[in-house]
């Protein structure tokens, strides 16, 4: 990276900070919530893209890691009397009943726990390949959800948790999103990142070049799980209520849609499409409501929105397999060229 790029990145971050400040002060709650969701989906998308896009492991267990993150943060940050209120069926077990942590350590522990589970799941499951891995990770996510539904005295079972303190604000979500992007960029451009990509392209070739397949796969999976846990924690404390039914396969599907649309293997693509998908998920809510065409009223059909999104995913996969960005990344040179409408220099420096 050149000096100019550092300045430009710095300026962009300052502009983002000013924008967040204004948004925090003047935007209404609904828009702030959508902006928060955009950042959280960016984190989740990046964590899944690391596993699926960069390392080429088709994992469908993301909802499970998010559930671990969301529940850890929620249980740790719930106030003592809110816990007493939540757990009216069966009291919460002793050490958890009286803890009330600040947001950051709770979030960190959520990430670490999720990473630990990711490691424990990954170590055996990553011996599998392709669709077997997909179905095994899907199975693990489902097992986590069933366990959470049944452990009444830790997670409050199917009743879910309510009155989770709304700690997630724009600063937290965008701060962590920027941090995640930075970590991903550094990771992907490191020797580890090159090893991940080599595994994605051809496992056998990568192994014969001396890359330790197992170590790198588990590493990618664990890091992905860590950020998925943090994303889940942010989501839980944004929404205020969580229950196990939230963390079904549909949630994994939404994130899969984001990374496929953005391009498997592109950080920039994931960020763009996280915003696109989250905003259009909200903007297309009108599809579920009756539409008045003046002379004719189309009755609202709940679920129409998801039909549109399923069709969108299929169109992307069938006709634009590389998504928005393929595996290209944003860089300042290209960006400046685009805004200056300058043609790139030809070979030999002629214009």
């Amino acid at each position: 990276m050149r000096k100019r790029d550092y300045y430009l990145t710095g300026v962009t971050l300052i502009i983002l900070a000013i924008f967040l400040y204004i948004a925090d002060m003047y935007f209404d709650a609904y828009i702030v919530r959508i902006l928060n969701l955009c950042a959280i989906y960016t984190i989740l998308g990046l964590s899944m893209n690391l596993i699926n896009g960069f390392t080429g492991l088709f994992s469908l267990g993301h909802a499970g890691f998010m559930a671990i993150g969301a529940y850890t943060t929620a249980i740790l940050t719930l106030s003592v009397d809110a816990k007493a209120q939540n757990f009216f069926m069966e009291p919460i077990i002793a050490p958890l009943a009286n803890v009330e942590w600040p947001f950051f350590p709770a979030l960190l522990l959520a990430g670490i726990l999720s990473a630990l589970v990711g490691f424990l799941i990954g170590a055996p499951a990553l011996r599998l390949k392709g669709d077997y891995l997909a179905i095994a990770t899907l199975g693990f996510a489902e097992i986590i959800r069933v366990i959470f539904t049944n452990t009444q005295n830790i997670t409050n079972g199917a009743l879910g948790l309510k009155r989770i303190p709304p700690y997630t604000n724009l600063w937290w979500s965008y701060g962590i999103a920027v941090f995640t992007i930075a970590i991903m960029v550094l990771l992907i451009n490191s020797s580890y990142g090159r090893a991940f990509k080599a595994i994605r392209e051809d496992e056998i070739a990568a192994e014969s070049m001396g890359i330790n397949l197992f170590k790198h796969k588990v590493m990618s999976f664990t890091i992905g799980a860590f950020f998925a846990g943090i994303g889940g924690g942010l989501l839980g404390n944004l929404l205020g209520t969580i229950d196990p039914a939230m963390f079904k396969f549909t949630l994994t599907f939404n994130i899969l849609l984001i990374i496929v649309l953005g391009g498997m293997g592109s950080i920039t693509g994931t960020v763009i499409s996280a915003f696109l998908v989250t905003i259009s998920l909200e903007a297309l809510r009108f599809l579920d409501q009756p539409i008045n065409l003046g002379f004719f009223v189309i009755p609202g059909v709940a679920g129409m929105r998801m039909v549109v999104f399923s069709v969108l995913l299929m169109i992307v996969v069938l006709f634009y397999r590389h998504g928005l960005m393929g595996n290209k990344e944003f860089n300042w040179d290209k960006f400046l060229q685009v805004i200056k409408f300058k043609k790139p220099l030809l070979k030999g420096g002629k214009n």
Partner: protein
Amino acid sequence: MTPIMFLQHLANGISLGSLYALIAIGYTMVYGILRLINFAHGDIFMMATYFAFFGVFFGLPWYIAFPITIILTVLLGMGVELTAYRSLRDAPKISIMISAIGASFLLENLAIVIFGGRPKAFPTEEIFTKVVHVGDIAVQRLTFIIPVVTAILLIMLSYLINKTKTGMAMRAVSKDHETARLMGINIDRTISTTFAIGSALAAIGGIMWGLKFPQIQPLMGVMPGLKCFIAAVIGGIGSITGAVIGGFFLGVSEIMLVAFFQSMTGYRDAFAFIILIIVLLFKPTGIMGEKISEKV
């Protein structure tokens, strides 16, 4: 646990297992020929119960409504293959799987939009649901009909695959697409036939499922779909005998788990996945599967 109760549970387990086996065959045949988990199979099964529901709902007698259901489901299965899988035949595997997941979600959401999200009561036909007494066991007639129908279908299927030209073509395509094409086999048509057979079995399974558990809703295909895929993996994916064994094993052991360990009822849905993971870790090729070595 009295012996009578045990027999009763066993009868239930066998009839559930037969249903699992019928659906698992669809997965295993498609996997055998395309190396693809047809995620949409569970939803094709769901659509079949809805077709049957509306057939009877509009006043058709069951012996007309059910064959129509099978035909519609077959068309649906072939349609899914044509739109979602055919153009991706040479694409990377990950794309095909995403397309399969997309097709599955599309069917689920279409069902929600068209049929409504609220559960509907499947019409009970007296002829199937009458309770009969065998000795001291009281079971629905259906509990016996299901395994018998399954057995007949299995015999027909095994004849089709082992004795007819279509079956030979299917076996050839599952070994090697290119060589099969050189031998003059129409690959597209063979794959289409495979989807048609799988969907027909799913339709029959769906109708019997509706009669046995008479509450249908748009997401009902997800869990049976996943479990039947697991059954196929347990038996060794790609092998039809394996799928049947896996289906029966899963059905019977699930019923027995709930019967013997009442407190584990909440974990019923996780049970199949735990078995799956154990099988994948210790014998990834399943009971009947062959070891496939990787070619460089």
